[in-house]
C-alpha cells in the first residue's frame, strides 16, 4: 500500500552538500524498505521532525518503559503530536552496551541490523555520547521482543537514569603504542561488577566509568566520568636516541627545540650538543606531548599502572567539575590488583549512595562535604598528588595537626621513603 508521504521542504535542504545525509537515510527506509511498518514509522518520524524544524520545538516526552526484570536501559519517547503522526507515536531508544573498546565484526553488525529491522525503525547509532549503541525508534511491545532476541545472542542493556551507566574505554592495547594498561579488562571488570546497579536504577544519580589507556585521555574520562581510570607509568620513559637523532635530522634543530623541548610543561627535557635527548624523569608529569610528537623515539616505561580520578561531570547543578586524583598510582597486573580496583569502586559507590543527595553526582557530593571528609569516608589517606597546591585560606581549625603529622611520617616510614 502506497503511503501518503509528508512534505519535508526544510529537511530536504539537508540532503544537499557533500557530507552524508541522515535525512536521505531516513527517506531510504521510508521509500525502499520492504516492510510497510518501517515505511510508515519513518514517514511519520520525518513528518514530526519537519514540524520541529518549522516550529523550532521538540515534541517528545519521556515516560516509563523497560523490559521484564529490569528498571532502566530504555529511553522512553512518546510523541506529543502522535495524533498527527501515529505510526511513530511510540519511538523509544534501546541503549545497548557495546563490546569494550568498540570492536565489531561485520557479521555481528549484520546480525544486529537483521533483528533491529524486524522490530524497530531501522535507525541506529554507533554510539551515543553515553557510549551505548543507540537503537532509535521502537514501540513498547517490540522493545521487549527486540531485547529478548539480541539478549539471547549476547547483548545486554546499558544504563539510563540514576544508576551505574554504560562504561567506555579506548582502543588501547589493541592498537595503540601509548597504552599503559589493559583498558578492556578494567572496563569490563568494573562495569560488569555492577550489572544490578546498571539495570535497576537506585542510586542518587548517574555514575560513569571511563578508561583511557594513557594521559591523552581519548575517552574524555577526567571531564566526563565519575570514576576515571587513566593509564600511566612511574619508571623512566624509554628513549631511542638513534630515533631522536633521526627526527632532528629530518625536522631540524630549531623545530625540535620549539616543538619538543620548550613545550614540556615541567621543563623536564634538554637537548644535548650531540642531538640526543635528556629527560629528567622525576620532573616529568607524563603529559604525553613529547611521546605524541615522536612516537618512534619515545615510549612509556615498563612499570605501568593507572591513576584514578573521581568526580568529573558537566554543568548541572553546581558547575563543571574535572575529576580529582584520589589514587595517584596503582598497579594493574595481578588478579588481586584488579580485585582491589573493583573494591575501591564499590567503596566509593556505597559511600556516595549513603551520603549523596538526590540528583547529586559524586563530584558534587565531594564539593559539598570536602575532599578530606570524602577520603576519610572511603579510607584513603591524603596525598599531595591530589592537589594542585595546599590550602590558601587560613580559616581552619587544626586541633589534630600533631597526630596527623605523626601519621604521615609513620606512613612514609612504612612505605620505605
Amino acid at each position: 500500500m502506497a503511503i501518503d508521504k509528508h512534505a519535508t521542504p526544510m529537511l530536504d535542504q539537508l540532503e544537499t552538500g557533500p557530507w552524508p545525509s541522515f535525512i536521505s537515510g531516513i527517506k531510504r527506509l521510508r521509500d525502499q524498505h520492504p516492510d510497510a511498518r518501517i515505511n510508515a514509522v519513518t514517514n511519520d518520524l520525518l513528518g514530526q521532525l519537519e514540524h520541529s524544524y518549522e516550529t523550532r520545538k521538540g515534541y517528545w516526552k519521556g515516560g516509563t518503559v523497560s523490559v521484564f526484570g529490569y528498571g532502566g536501559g530504555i529511553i522512553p519517547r512518546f510523541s506529543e503530536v502522535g495524533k498527527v503522526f501515529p505510526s511513530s507515536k511510540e519511538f523509544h531508544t534501546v541503549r545497548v552496551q557495546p563490546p569494550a573498546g568498540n570492536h565489531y565484526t561485520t557479521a555481528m553488525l549484520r546480525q544486529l541490523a537483521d533483528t533491529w529491522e524486524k522490530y524497530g525503525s531501522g535507525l541506529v547509532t554507533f554510539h551515543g555520547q553515553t557510549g551505548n549503541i543507540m537503537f532509535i525508534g521502537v514501540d513498547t511491545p517490540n522493545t521487549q521482543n527486540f531485547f529478548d532476541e539480541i539478549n539471547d545472542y549476547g547483548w545486554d542493556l546499558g544504563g539510563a537514569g540514576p544508576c551505574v551507566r554504560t562504561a567506555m574505554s579506548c582502543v588501547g592495547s589493541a592498537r595503540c603504542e601509548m597504552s599503559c594498561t589493559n583498558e578492556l579488562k578494567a572496563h569490563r571488570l568494573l562495569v560488569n561488577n555492577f550489572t544490578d546497579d546498571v539495570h535497576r536504577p537506585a542510586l542518587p544519580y548517574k555514575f560513569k566509568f571511563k578508561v583511557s589507556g594513557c594521559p591523552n585521555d581519548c575517552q574524555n574520562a577526567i571531564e566526563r566520568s565519575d570514576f576515571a581510570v587513566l593509564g600511566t607509568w612511574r619508571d623512566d620513559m624509554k628513549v631511542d636516541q638513534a630515533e631522536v637523532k633521526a627526527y632532528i635530522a629530518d625536522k631540524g634543530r630549531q623545530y625540535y627545540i620549539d616543538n619538543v623541548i620548550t613545550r614540556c610543561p615541567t621543563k623536564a627535557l634538554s637537548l644535548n650538543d650531540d642531538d640526543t635527548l635528556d629527560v629528567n624523569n622525576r620532573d616529568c608529569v607524563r603529559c604525553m606531548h613529547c611521546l605524541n610528537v615522536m612516537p618512534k623515539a619515545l615510549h612509556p616505561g615498563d612499570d605501568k599502572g593507572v591513576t584514578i580520578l573521581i568526580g568529573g561531570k558537566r554543568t548541572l547543578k553546581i558547575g563543571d567539575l574535572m575529576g580529582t586524583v584520589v589514587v595517584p598510582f596503582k598497579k594493574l597486573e595481578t588478579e588481586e590488583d584488579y580485585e582491589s580496583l573493583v573494591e575501591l569502586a564499590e567503596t566509593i559507590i556505597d559511600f556516595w549512595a549513603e551520603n549523596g543527595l538526590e540528583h547529586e553526582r559524586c563530584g558534587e557530593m565531594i564539593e559539598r562535604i570536602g575532599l578530606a571528609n570524602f577520603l576519610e569516608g572511603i579510607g584513603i589517606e591524603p596525598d599531595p598528588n591530589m592537589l594542585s597546591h595546599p590550602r590558601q585560606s587560613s580559616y581552619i581549625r587544626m586541633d589534630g595537626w600533631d597526630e596527623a603529622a605523626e601519621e604521615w611520617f609513620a606512613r612514609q616510614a612504612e612505605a620505605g621513603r
Partner: protein
Amino acid sequence: MAEMREPIESGCPDPWQYMHPVMRKNFGMWKYHEHPRPGVLLHVAYSGDKIWTVKAGTQRILDVFTLRKLCDIGDEFADGYVHFTIRSNIEYLVSDESKVQPLIDALEGAGFVVGGTQNSVAMISHTQGWLHCDIPGTDASGVVKSMMDELIDEFRNARMPNRVHITTSCCQINCGGQGDIAINVQHTKPPKINHDLVANVCERPSVVARCPVAAIRPAMVNGKPSLEVDERKCICCGACYPPCPPMQINDAEHSKLAIWVGGNHSNARGKPTFQKLVAAGIPNNPPRWPEATAIVKRILKAYKEGAKDWERINEWIERIGWPRFFEEVELPFTKYHIDTWRGARASFNSSSYIRF
C-alpha cells in the same frame, strides 16, 4: 499473559572475539604509528606486524541500508573487522597494505568521507536533538550535517595546527561535551509555566531542589498547587524543564545558540581545560544554521593561520591573549563574558600582564 523471559545479565561483551587477529596477536605490544595520509594510520608492533586503519565519517544516525553498505565494504575491501571511534567514525582494520587504496576508493565511491585523523577537524560529536530528545532546543544532527558540509575539506586533510574537536549540544546540559569549539543552545528567557499541569505532572519538591540558584518555590496559582519562578534570579538554564515539562524553556524565538572555545580533554602540554564562552545570541535557524557555521569558520581560519604546530585552540589563545582573539575572530566582548559563577575570581587577571 504469556510467560515473560528472564533477562541474561551478561553486561558489557568481551571484545576479544571481534578484534582483528593481528590486533589480538599484538595486544599490548605495539611499538609506534605513522600517518601515511589523512584518514589512514599505520601501527607497527614489536613483532614487526603491521595494521592499517582507514577512518571514515558517516551521517552517525545510520539506517540499516547504510550500515549494511558499510559492512559490504568491510567484507569486500577489508578484513571484516571494524572499530568505532568516540566521535562515531568507523575505522576499518586491514593487515595488507595493498587493500588500503581500494578500500578508500570504495568508501569515497559510496559517499563516505575518509579523513578525521591527526591534525584535522574531526567529526563533530553531537546529541539527539529534535529527532529523539525530550528537552532539545535544536536539532544537533541538522547543525552537524550543515557544518560538516562546509568543513569537509578540513576533515579530509590534516592541515590544522593540531586536532580540532567540535561538539554540539541541544541544551545547556551539554551532552556533546567539552570541545575546542562547542555550539550549544543557550536559553535566554525564564520558563513559561502551564499552571494547570504542574500539580499532576511534576514532583514539586524535586523541581525546587533542581534549581541551581534557588529561584523556584511552591505556590498556589488560580487555586491550584503549582510552582513560581523568581525571574530576577532565574538564569534560564532549563534545569527545571526535564523534571517538570510544564515549565517550558524552549522558545522558537528566544532559544539561541552560543559558541564556546578551548575545551581540551588531553593532558598533553597542560592540564585538561573547560571551554569558555565567546559568542551568544546566535539565531537557532533551521534547516542550515548559517550564522553559527560562519562564526565557527572564522574561528577555525584565525586558528589555522595564527597557531603554532601542536597548539590546540586553548593554547593558541593563551599565547596570543583574549583581546587579540576577539579581534581576530571579529566577535564583540561584553560584560556577559565575565564569569559570575562560584570560583569566578580565579578567572580575573590579577597581574600586570597586558599585551599591547
